[in-house]
């Protein structure tokens, strides 16, 4: 089931990014990554890409995760959004305000994120029925 799910993962920490990439890849997700919100936005706007779910860090240079979420909500409303944060409550609260579907606080267990993703995807397919 997970095999068809296309993920965009955004984090300005390269180690986290590659760990996430390896993990979701091995779980049969189709994964693309971006090192900050601006790169992510360019990936999204590239017509040859399309995604089902966005997993994004919040505190990043140029376009923050909160900014990215707001833009995605407006321009790609079908995308499910998971926000991750390691910086106290503020960014998380702003992410909820920007209508992220789920906000998780770091450190986050990879299996837990995977669970969240597949739950969100099920919700989506349920709705489509």
């Amino acid at each position: 089931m997970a095999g068809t799910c296309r993920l965009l993962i955004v984090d300005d920490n390269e180690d986290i990014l590659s760990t996430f990439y390896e993990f979701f890849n091995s779980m049969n997700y189709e994964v693309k990554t971006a090192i900050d919100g601006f790169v992510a936005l360019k990936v999204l706007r590239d017509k040859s890409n399309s995604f089902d779910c966005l997993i994004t860090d919040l505190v990043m240079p140029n376009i923050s995760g909160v900014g990215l979420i707001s833009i995605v909500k407006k321009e790609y409303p079908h995308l499910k959004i998971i926000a991750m944060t390691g910086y106290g409550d503020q960014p998380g609260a702003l992410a909820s305000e920007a209508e992220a579907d789920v906000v998780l606080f770091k450190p986050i267990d990879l299996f837990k994120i995977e669970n969240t993703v597949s739950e969100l995807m099920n919700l989506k397919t349920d709705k489509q029925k």
Partner: protein
Amino acid sequence: MTTPLIGVSNSILKIKELISHVANTCLNVLITGETGVGKEVIAQSLYSESIRSSENFVKINCAALPETLLESELYGFEKGAFTGAHKKRPGKFQTADKGVLFLDEIGDMPLSLQSKMLHVLQSGEFSPLGSDQDFKTDVWVIAATNHNLEKSIAQKMFREDLFYRLNIIKIHIPPLRERKEDISPLIEYYHRLYQSEYPNSNGSKPDSDTLAKLCQYEWPGNVRQLQNCIKKQMVLDSWAKIFDELPKEQESIPQLPEGDQQNNVPLSATNEFATNEFATNQTTIISEFVDLSTSSEKLFEDISLKKIKKLASDRVEKEVITFVLEKVGWNRSRAAKILKISYKTLLYKMNEFKVHPPVK
């Protein structure tokens, strides 16, 4: 007329690209960078590329006004809200409605006003001083600061929640010394601009040696300082004089980060230009007016800016008066006209400075 964003460095190119991607999102923007790097130029570019460009761009400098005045400027007031409020007045939030509100020097905003600002940004509503009515506001907030706000937050000078609310899009402009390849296009642009504004000015553009020196300089005042130099050059037409008048750094120039070095700094310029030569230059000038050889205690007693200003201006005045008198063959009324002072003042000054015609 808005200033175009001039620059060919990677940082400026990246900022231009970012602007084109976010100008229509109307998400809060925080622009950081030293004074004079072009924060307002960036704010203007965001505005003019956005769908709000036909509405107002309203600027307020949060550092320039005392707290109460800043508050009434931002939110406006009702008639009788405080002593002196004879007439109701709209605030910047109102004039900027549907357009852009540029909060310059946000890092200097007093804490008490920061809470109110946070509330307005959260709720999208504000009420003028002395009013119990709430007004809806639809402004695109672009804020700028030369402070390191993370540091200010640690020092409890800036609210963390306000920081995160503003920092949705973050644009950092590096100082000019870290993007030297922008110096040449900036000179090109401003030289042409001033030439067209003052067609009679004849300042030449820098030759390659001068350009190399200009690239070697630290530019503590960034683009604004460079701009002022070009303006001066249009009048003086002497890059040598311009260099003489540049504030000198006493410390040596920090090495550039690796990647930055290849494509910009011309090799012919040497570091000496910015260090030793300048330091001695500085003390030479000062020693002309105060005795630097005394103990620092005595020295600090001697240094009075007022006194030095008088001494320095007297010296220049004496030189100029003598120069003009010589040119006009000691015709004092002609000299007074040229110097744009009265005949009486000239005589007084000649006496004071002991300027006498040569004895034949």
